[in-house]
């Protein structure tokens, strides 16, 4: 088993993510350079958090045209797993591997804090180690995490069980206050129809060791590893 983490110019959670998979979970993990056309035979691709290409134009908009994204597209089309974290989620939206788009947070502030998210769909390869409705404590750090999709797309997402995570109160209830960035339907993470592409704004790699204040991110990282 081998996991690949894509390095874009401006990624800043790339080595945290490699650390989480390699050192914390003990799985072989390699960096994948965005300019290459080589996925090095990995079994899962992670698009990490950060500010690829300085967030110029729109978050994730330029990274989408990176040479390696052609291979990532083909990899995803074959049903192989792709996980996008924060900026990686934004890249997946721009790539149209997941539906919708991101707007600036509702209060126009960069939000960097721990939040509660609820596992909405526990039957995915990214959530299988968690229970339905389980509340995870995982940090967010973003400016553009206000999820938007047109009404008909939103309905299809809900009907298809494609909402993986929602922002919630620590007891799992939904509220306007806990929906920190203003996302439609409190959406914090999505999965595609085929179930092999997942994107979420919270950073599971930043909640993978006790010393970081939470280990809840491991439910997500370990679910993926277990599914390989």
């Amino acid at each position, binding site marked *: 088993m081998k996991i690949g983490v894509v390095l874009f110019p401006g990624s800043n959670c790339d080595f945290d993510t490699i650390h989480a998979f390699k050192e914390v979970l003990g799985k072989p993990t390699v960096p994948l350079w965005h300019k290459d056309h080589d996925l090095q035979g990995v079994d899962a691709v992670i698009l990490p958090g950060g500010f690829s290409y300085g967030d110029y134009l729109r978050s994730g908009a330029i990274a989408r045209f990176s040479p390696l994204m052609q291979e990532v597209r083909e990899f995803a089309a074959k049903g192989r797993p792709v996980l996008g974290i924060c900026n990686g989620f934004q890249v997946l939206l721009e790539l149209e591997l997941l539906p919708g*788009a991101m707007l600036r947070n509702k209060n*126009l502030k960069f939000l960097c804090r721990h939040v509660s998210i609820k596992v909405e769909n526990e039957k995915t390869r990214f959530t299988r180690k968690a229970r339905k409705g389980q509340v995870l404590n995982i940090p967010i750090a973003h400016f553009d995490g206000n999820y*938007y*999709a047109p009404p008909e797309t939103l309905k299809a997402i809900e009907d298809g069980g494609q909402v993986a995570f929602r922002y919630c109160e620590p007891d799992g209830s939904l509220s306007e206050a806990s929906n920190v960035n203003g996302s439609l339907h409190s959406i914090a993470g999505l999965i595609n129809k085929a179930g092999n592409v997942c994107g979420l704004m919270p950073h599971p790699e930043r909640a993978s060791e006790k010393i970081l204040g939470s280990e809840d991110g491991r439910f997500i990282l370990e679910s993926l590893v277990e599914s390989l």
Partner: protein
Amino acid sequence: MKVRILVSFKDSVLDPQGQTVRNALHTLGYDAVQDLRQGKVFEVELAGVDRAAAEKLVPEMASKVLANPIIEKYTWSVIED
């Protein structure tokens, strides 16, 4: 040829930055301001392209790269021949 492309949020999409700018103008006493939408401007120099070719090229670039059609719309015009 030089073209100018204006990208802004669709009317159905909230524009919190535009609202904040509008509120700032209200605070300064510009009560005539009813609504304000913020957008982006791109001025693009094109070489070896006539108007007919630009009619095809500009919308393609705008919808593929400059604007995200899920949340944004665009208009464009030729500003220099």
